[in-house]
């Protein structure tokens, strides 16, 4: 297998290298790729869409249709993780810790659930005492990460960033919460149902904004048709893009959390890293 793989790889490499023979030089401003469409976007995008970040302009407007399906791909990944891993059966084995004394209770089976609170707390099987420094630092850090994520989403029109990056950052702040405390803390705060609805709703915002353009007299995704609905018709395309980016951000946040929770707890949503 190794030898066969080596031959296949070498053949592919040779084919690709052969193809590079007629490439224009790296960074050549006159290569065909940087003349045909690129010039049009650079010269007209700001005029037509009022968005200075050309990548966002092309991403959410000229090629917004791609991005819509890209968001669906992300949604699909979250759904796939849910379908593959989610296991609704409760685990019989449970661990509790008596807070004042530090004694650990191991419940092997049985229905009785201890009330957790001041006296007892849930414990993971592979549990390590959580560090005060880590907990405190993360507690301080998480709100700032989230605000930064919102900034990235909202400011995607003007600077690098946008719905996807912001969503990932927001999602990783949730993951940080789960890592620094434990998975139960996250799952208790944000229910699985909320995450699922958020993921679908995020994509729905995108497709919805795109679809509303049709009864408003435009083509699918033609933000210009939304002009009567917004307060600033001059910037209607930029506003449409902002709405779309918010949708993407929501979907991505939720999906990142769903994937993490399902992988780390094998779909049981009880204990993890």
């Amino acid at each position: 297998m190794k030898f066969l793989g080596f031959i296949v790889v070498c053949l592919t490499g040779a084919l690709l290298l052969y193809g590079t023979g007629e490439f224009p030089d790296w960074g050549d401003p006159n290569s065909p790729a940087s003349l045909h469409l690129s010039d049009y976007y650079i010269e007209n995008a700001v005029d037509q869409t009022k968005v200075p970040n050309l990548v966002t302009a092309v991403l959410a407007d000229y090629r917004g249709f791609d991005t819509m399906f890209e968001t669906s791909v992300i949604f699909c990944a979250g759904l796939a993780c849910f379908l593959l891993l989610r296991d609704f059966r409760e685990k019989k084995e449970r661990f509790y810790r008596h807070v004042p004394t530090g004694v650990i209770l191991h419940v092997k089976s049985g229905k009785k659930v201890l009330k957790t609170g001041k006296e007892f707390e849930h414990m993971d099987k592979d549990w390590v005492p959580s560090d005060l420094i880590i907990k405190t630092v993360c507690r301080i850090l998480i709100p700032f990460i989230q605000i930064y994520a919102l900034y990235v989403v909202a400011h995607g029109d003007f600077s690098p960033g946008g719905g996807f990056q912001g969503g990932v950052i927001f999602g990783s702040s949730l993951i940080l919460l789960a890592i620094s405390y434990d998975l139960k803390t996250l799952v208790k705060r944000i229910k699985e149902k909320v995450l699922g609805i958020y993921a679908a709703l995020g994509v729905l915002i995108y497709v919805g904004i795109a679809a509303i353009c049709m009864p408003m007299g435009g083509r699918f995704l033609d933000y210009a048709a939304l002009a009567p609905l917004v307060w600033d018709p001059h910037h209607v395309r930029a506003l449409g893009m902002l709405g779309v980016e918010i949708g993407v951000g929501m979907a991505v946040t939720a999906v990142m959390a769903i994937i993490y929770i399902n992988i780390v707890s094998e779909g049981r949503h009880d204990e993890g890293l």
Partner: protein
Amino acid sequence: MDNTPALIVVTPLLAALFAGLAAWIKERLSYPIALIGLAVSVYSAFKVLMQVITSGTIHYRVAGWAPPMGIEYSIDLLNAMVLLIVSSIAFLNLIASYKSVARETSDRTGSFYTMYLLFVTGLLGVTATGDLFNLYVLIEITSLTSYAMVALGDRDRGPLASLNYIFIGVIGASFYLLGVGYLYMQTGSLNMADVATILSGIHGSSTVLVAFILMMIGVWIKMALFPLHVWLPNAYSYSPIAFARVVAPLMTKVMVYVMIRMMITVFGFDYIFKTLNLSHAVVWLATIAILAGAIMALSQKNLKKMLAYIIVCEIGYMVGGAWMGNQLGMTGAILHILNDALMTFALFLAVGNMAYKLKKVDLPDLKGLFGKMPWTMAGFVLAAFSIIGVPPTCGFFSKWYLILAAFEAGAWHFAAALVISSLICAVLFFRVFEICFFEPISESHGQKDGYSHVAIEEAPISMLIVSGLVSLSLIVAGLYSGTIVNTIILPFLR
């Protein structure tokens, strides 16, 4: 403004999202939503097909930007036909599979329907789009949904088969993406029509040649042409039956459509058959694929696996026809997209009915099935005749075109492979019929003496109606294949 072309693709997507949301409120709500979404899609596809037949190609600019800048749907006769096939098969299958979904994925039917709709959205989008990169994104949607579905079916082997499918599928999609990159390097554009105009000036470039090879290998991996087919049999036989019934007829056929689209619209016949002159090599490859598929099908003991290898064999027909380099061959290949989708769908519907009752479909399990499930078996027999190529079922006509094309191009080996594979199919299916008809039911089923006292245990009526309808449509499609060729395929090829 007429938005029907967009509606074909967008309604399943919207329905998928609403079904996903509804599943959190009440699981039962997602089924009617899915049904409505696909019904609108079928209606729009039908309307678009009629429009294209009367008034020519439709160009729909998504977001209102002119083609090379924005993404454009350009729907001609070939697109419109494939769109109608895809949406109606997906719709019919949804009707047929209500019960089996409820049984196979009992606690998460809502998610199943969402996944199903996303898969159909992907297929429809791949068919409708006129943009090279958009095609890649949509291929990824279809692939991602099928990875998840394959893992869901068989709990023991599904996940492993699915992971192997991911590795191969990612290589295929990435090769396609690389090919698009090489093309973009030389042309600076992503719109198919635009790329085609620019390409006609630079036929000699080695970059274009490499782009062509990469894209073809990518598409061949995705459609499971013979040496690259290893993922298909496992993937199709392990997925849940409701999904297998839609993925088996549609996925490979849509990929064949993509190949034909690349050949006709992007690179052009002049480039492929005059500049490169690859016809002979690929027709030989297709010949080998047909024979290999047929022979591997012979050695299978499971009905689903056997059908999967027959699909590998059928892909050889279409690739060979498309690469024959004459009009007859292309006609045969396109007609076979339609016919093969219908035949495979009919076969898998019948197998689905059997699997619903019998739980597993190894050949020995099928004993006495004619007595137990007469209607299902009637559908199965019709579909099998069509695969073998018995007139007046539709399978005969596309094979006829392909054989004529092979004679015209002098590709005797391809014609011989066609005849041999038909004979092998005949042997295969008559072996199944023999088991189902003549061998008595084994003791374990509780009957004592043969099939004479067997109580009829049919599949649910919704499954039977769809199965019967599709099987009858095989004959109808066969009788009207002249009309289909004259109104859709020949005008398209001119």
